[in-house]
Each structure stands twice: as C-alpha cells, then as structure tokens.
C-alpha cells in the first residue's frame, strides 16, 4: 500500500536527510521504523502523509503515484491513513470527545451517526471518564491515548504512529503496544516510529525499518 523508490529529501538547501530510500509496506503488516534521534523517522512519516514532497524518487500510495495528485485525491488518501503525531496535535479548544470525533466531523457526518462509536472507542482506550476534558488538563498518557483514538476512529487501512510511547511509563507503553498489535490483527497495517529498543523487543516478530545516515535498511 506504500512504495518508496529511491526517495531523497532535503529541507531547503540543507544536506539530504533521506537518500535513496526504497521500501514498501504491505497490507496488514506491522513494522517498526527506527533509528537514532534526528535520523529522519518523522520526515519519512511526513512523506507518507503527503505533507512533504520528495526532492527525488517516487512514492506510491494505494497504487497511486503521488507527485501528480490533486487536492481532492490527497484528502481521499489521508482519510485512509490514521496518524498519531509525536506532539499529539490535539486541538486545545475542543474536548477529548470532540478531538476524537474530529476526523468523522470533517467528513461532514452527522453527530448521531458516530456518537456511540466515539464513546465506545474512548472507553476502550481508557478515557471514558475524560470525554469532556480539554487537552491542556490531560496527562501526557491521556493525551497520547486521545491522539491514538483520533487516529483509530476512522478505522484506517494504515496507521502511522510517531514515538507513541515516548511520553508514557513502561507499563502504559506495553498496553499501547498491545492495542496496536490487536489493531494489526484486525487488518490494519501499522508503522510505529520509535527509538525505544525495549518496546521493539516486546514484539520481535515485527519488521524493522532502520534509518541511519539517511539510508534505510530493512530487516524482515
């Protein structure tokens, strides 16, 4: 569902952050994207999200070459991808419930068609008591789970999570990983960017995409 061919990327006139990156992500797969801090993990996820354009090479998403996509097609592709940002990017002036419902709301769906679904997901990630709280008063772990719930609410075909365990204690990290694994079993492809070796060891059958010095090495 994702295919990179000789992708290179530089920010402005800087050095190439990514060089000749080629890999693909298959449907219903689970992979860790890893590498030291500053290796380009976030950059690679942004390329998949179409928030950056590669300076070289080709990116195919859902069998579409991405360099010529129009805005409507980009929107359509983003609706098939769930994303958990490293810094969550929850909207501070909306409640937890509204934040999680946002991807459905922006599709113009009527609230009564998804309310039950959103509340159930919030209970499932353990935020059932926090539906009316605003992000600034949530703890780091609660924000993390709200961000994950927002990514999951559309039942995406591909889930991208950027350091989803970076802000939580090890026991919550384990629970979150279990949540991702469960999601993977239900058919979603998962990409988790992390430099947390302990986390990866808990699911060592997963594929590993390792970034270093701008290049990507794949360990199946």
């Amino acid at each position, binding site marked *: 569902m994702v295919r990179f061919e000789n992708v290179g990327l530089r920010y402005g006139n800087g050095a190439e952050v990514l060089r000749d990156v080629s890999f693909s992500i298959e449907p219903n797969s689970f992979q860790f994207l890893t590498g030291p801090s500053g290796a380009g993990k976030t950059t690679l996820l942004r390329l998949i*999200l179409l*928030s950056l354009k590669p300076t070289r090479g080709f990116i195919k998403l859902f069998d579409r070459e991405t360099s010529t996509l129009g*805005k*409507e097609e980009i*929107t359509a592709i*983003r*609706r098939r991808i769930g*994303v958990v*940002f490293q810094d969550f*990017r929850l*909207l501070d*002036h*909306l*409640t937890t*419930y*509204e934040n999680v*419902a*946002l*991807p459905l*709301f*922006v*599709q*113009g769906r009527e*609230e*009564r068609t998804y*309310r039950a679904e959103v509340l159930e997901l919030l209970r499932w990630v353990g935020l059932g008591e926090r*539906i*009316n709280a605003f992000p600034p008063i949530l703890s780091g772990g609660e924000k993390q789970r709200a961000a994950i719930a*927002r990514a999951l609410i*559309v039942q995406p075909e591909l889930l991208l999570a950027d350091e989803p365990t970076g802000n939580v204690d090890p026991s919550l990290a384990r629970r979150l990983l279990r949540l991702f694994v469960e999601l993977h079993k239900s058919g979603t492809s998962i990409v988790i960017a992390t430099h947390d070796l302990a986390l990866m060891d808990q699911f060592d059958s997963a594929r590993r995409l390792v970034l270093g010095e701008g290049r990507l090495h794949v360990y199946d």
Partner: protein
Amino acid sequence: MPTLVQRALSKIAGRLKPGLSLVSSDSIASNALVTVIAIMTFLATLTAGAAMLVRNASQDWSSTVAREMTIQVKPALGRDMEADARRAGEIARSVTGIRDVRVFSRQESAKLLEPWLGTGVEMADLPVPTLIVVKLDSSQQANVTSLREALRASVPNAILDDHRAWVDRLELMARSLVAVALVVVLLVLAAMGLAVAFATRGAMAGSREIVDVLHFVGAADAFISKQFRGHFLRLGMKGAIVGGLFAVFAFVALGFISARWSLDAGGDQVEALFGQFDLGWSGYAAVVVIAGAMAVLTGLISQSVVTHQLRRAR
C-alpha cells in the same frame, strides 16, 4: 446517573450541532472586527435611510408642485389687470384636465406679501401681478399647450408657469443625492470587505496549526473554508445587528426630534423641506436588508479568502 450521562451527551450534542467552532477565536481581533462591521453597517444604513428620506420628500415636493400651475397676470399700461385676470381664469377653466382655478384677489395677494411688505400697503399703488393658481386633475392629462396658446392670444400680459423647470431641478437634485448615497454605501461595503479580508488572513495565520491538523485528519479545503465562513458569518451578524439597531435608534430619535420641531413655530417648514422623519416599513426593511447583506458578505468574503489562500498553499 443515566440523567447525568444524558445531560453530558446533550451538552456535547449542543456543542457539536452548530458546527464545532474550529477557527480559533482571538477575542480581541474578533471584537475589533465586530466593531468595524457595526460601524460600517450603521453608516451604510444611515446613508441609505437618508437617501430614502430625500427621495420620499422629493416625490412629495414634485407631485405637489407638478399638480399645480400658476398664471401671473402682469400689470400693463392701458390694460385692466382685474379684467385680464378674470379672462385668464375663464380660459383656464375651459381647458380639459383642470380641476380648479383660483384667482387671487388683491386682498389675498396683499396677505401673501404681508411678511415682506408689512400691513397697510396699498396694493393698487404697487405693480404686483395677480396670481391665478390652477390645480390639475390628476386623472387627466391637462392640455397645457392649448392653454398657453389661448392665453397668448387673448391675454398677452399673462405668463403661464407649469413648474416643469422646478420639478426637473428637484428631481435632478434628489437623484444626485441618491446616487451619492449609493456611492457612499458602495465605498462602505468595499472598506468592510477589505477589513474582513484582512481579519480572515489574520485568523488563518492564527489557526495555522488547526488548519494543518484538519488537513491531516482528512478535511477538504471546502470544509475548512466553510468553517471560516461560519465563524465570520457569526461575527458579521453580531456587528450587523448592533449597527442596524443603532441606525434604527438614530432614525427613531430623529423622528422624535422632528415631531417636537413641528410643534414649534416653523416646524411645518422643516417638515416641508425634509419630509417626515418617518422611514416607513420600507425604510426599516432596507435596514434589515443592508444589515443582512453585511453579515452574509462577511461570511462569503472570508470563505473566498480562505479558499484562495488554501489553493495557493500547496
């Protein structure tokens, strides 16, 4: 417990229903914009209202003036002015489309001139023309040409004034005033459009993060620009209502003042000049239409600015 949940849910529903407010509302900028829109609405409605008053007044003037003609019979050597006036009156009466002819007697003419000449002036000594007021029948076109010719033939010292020049000049003046008012309203609208466009750009800059997130969770540009439209429509409505109310209040106050004047001496002259300060239902309808247009325009302008900016962004 269930009622608590229900209440919570309906609260959520209430928050979501009108469309989540996704545009971050910088309250200072919003209040400034509401104030600008209120002032602009006030000025636009006031100008439009004044134009309507002028138009109504001028219609009153011209219809009164146009429904009358005057014949002046000038004193001339060797002619009997009284007899001439009587003859002219008879000629006027015989023309079709004339409802009433009134020949002013010497006493009446003296009374008309009293404010200027004072009492006790012997009219016979003065070369004052005799006035004949001819009232036209509103249902029938008067044959002014034949009247003029008949007068020229038998009373050469009579001058027929059909007030056409006056009416034309009045109408021209009223029409220019209305045109000026229209230009003022258009300028006010243009200024407001600019203010809204800049406020929208400001709001977009302040909502950059939010717009990014909306894009990532799959919002189409059209959806985002509609959010901005909703936000600015609400601000526009607030400003327009405040400005419109102030304008209505101003007209009501002017109406009261003019009513007070007309009780005083000279009030009828003020009224004759300006008409009544009564906008009538069409005036108030105009206030509502202008205020509504301001609000709708605010929404549409911000939507188009956002659409434009988003299209350029990528």
